[in-house]
């Protein structure tokens, strides 16, 4: 199953690369438009390095073959760096941010959802769900500046931005803002699926055995109720990746998202392609992980493969 999935990922990644490659090239403007009047010698140097004088198809072919060998090419904007080096610098930062945000979203989301489902239609549920709707409806680029304004500028508890090698004080605010909308939607999802599981006959069976409410929740209801959450993890991961584009911009964090936006604005072809490829790869891996997790939680999946 896993092998098949990985084989399946190859054409998807190729498609991503191809779309991005030609999208970049048909776009108006080039990487060196801002420079004034390049001398023919400099032009020659640039063409030697980036092969921009070759036919497009040829460039595409050599880019693909280099990529297959793990070489993402030189960056157009950061002249001294290769894209591989830039990814090696940015990826750990983005991953760290994404990991903590995901963890926070899962823990708080599950907790809130469980509380809301346990006290369904009573006041804790109402409070949790109103908070959740507000959380989902407030873009994190609205919340981020407000948090910065109060926590960092007014009270000066935390730094305004920057990364500083990932010191925890610099991580806290970005992680919170990044995870807020996902806490809210996970809470809603968990509440909904728990309530649905609670209406299933097997929960009644569990109660008829004499199990306490908390045993019913943790031993019988939670695991089946996790299934929709697991399928939601794929889109969540994507959301965290794209969401971090904004967060990195706001907090000035040197992650992949910033490379991407700046690269796109500066027509840094190789850098944009590199970032898109890495993100695509991460998505494929994450979806694979979600699939495995799903099968692990739900034993029925094995036989239903025929559908």
């Amino acid at each position, binding site marked *: 199953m896993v092998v098949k999935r990985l084989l399946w*990922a190859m*054409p*998807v990644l190729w*498609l*991503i690369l191809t*779309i*991005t490659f030609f*999208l*970049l090239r*048909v*776009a*108006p*403007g080039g990487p060196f438009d801002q420079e004034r009047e390049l001398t023919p010698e400099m032009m020659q140097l640039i063409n030697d390095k980036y092969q921009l004088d070759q036919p497009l198809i040829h460039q595409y072919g050599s880019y693909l073959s280099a990529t297959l060998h793990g070489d993402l090419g030189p960056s157009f904007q950061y002249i001294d760096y290769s894209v591989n080096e830039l990814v090696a610098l940015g990826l750990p930062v983005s991953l760290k941010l994404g990991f903590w945000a995901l963890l926070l979203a899962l823990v708080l989301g599950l907790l809130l959802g469980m509380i809301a489902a346990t006290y369904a239609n009573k006041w804790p549920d109402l409070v949790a769900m109103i908070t959740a*709707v*507000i959380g*989902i*409806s*407030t*873009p994190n*680029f*609205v919340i*981020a*500046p*407000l948090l910065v*304004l109060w926590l960092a*500028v007014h009270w000066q508890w935390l730094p305004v931005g920057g990364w500083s090698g990932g010191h925890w004080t610099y991580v806290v605010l970005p992680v919170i803002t990044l995870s807020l909308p996902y806490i809210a939607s996970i809470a809603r999802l968990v509440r909904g699926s728990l309530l*649905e599981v609670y*209406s299933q006959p097997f929960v009644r069976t569990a109660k008829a055995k004499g199990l306490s409410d908390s045993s019913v929740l943790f031993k019988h209801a939670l695991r089946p109720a996790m299934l929709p959450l697991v399928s939601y993890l794929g889109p969540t991961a*994507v959301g965290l*990746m*794209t969401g971090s*584009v*904004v967060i990195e*911009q*706001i907090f000035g964090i040197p992650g992949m998202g910033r490379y*991407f*936006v700046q690269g*796109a*604005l500066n027509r840094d072809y190789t850098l*944009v392609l590199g*970032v*898109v490829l890495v*993100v*695509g790869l991460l*998505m*494929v891996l994450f*979806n694979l992980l979600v699939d495995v997790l799903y099968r692990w939680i739900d034993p029925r999946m094995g036989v239903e493969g025929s559908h």
Partner: protein
Amino acid sequence: MKLKLGLGLLFIIVVMVLIGPVFSEFDPETIHWDDMAIPPDSIYWMGTDVMGRDLYIRILLGGQVSLMVGIVATLVSVVIGVFYGMAAGFLGGRVDAVMMRLVDVFYALPFLFLVILLMVFFGQYLWLLFVAIGCYLWLDMARIVRGQTMMLKRQAFVEAAHALGQSNKKIIFSHVLPNLKGVVIVYATLTIPQVIMIESFLSFLGLGVQEPMTSWGALVNEGASNMDMAVWSLLFPALFLALTLIGFNLVGDGLRDRWDPALQNNK
């Protein structure tokens, strides 16, 4: 309850956005050099931004853009999604397998990145924004509609229509589509806030709506970069944006509670 609250909220916002500009004497682009970053007062009802432009009129006109993008892009996604999903679900078999495989491929694309790219390069064309967002969001709709169609296709009343000698076309239009209506409306209602969110996200990155036009996302962006001088220039557009999204989410949730076939079967 949710439904009424949401509808009320949306009604107020839509009325303000559509009719509100009439009551303002200001032009959204005129710069008042003497009145930069003025807090809300009796002249500038929502204050001015750091460039001295009246925020009230800018927010309401920006709202028109945000709402329009939301609705048009949602329509694009609904039309594509419903027809694609219904075709896959109704035809079934190999056609369905291929069509859904394609959706899987699209799902695996980091679409938002591509949308960002599109906007970077072709940002001056607002219509492209609709197309890009609509193309991104039709996938969910197609999946939901396909699932519902498959379910409906197996229902005895559709089989009965076949047995009565009804044509496929008639069956789709009189038995399948009417029963899809609820689901489509619910998810369309929930798609609108998503679109508005994506638009504002792009505008926040400076990639969406371009000057002189503005939208809530663009206004939030401006407000955020100047919040230490004029916090109201962040708060007002943010409030409008959030309230609109809350309104749509409430309506969508409310409709789902009312219509969701899964909930109805509880009887």
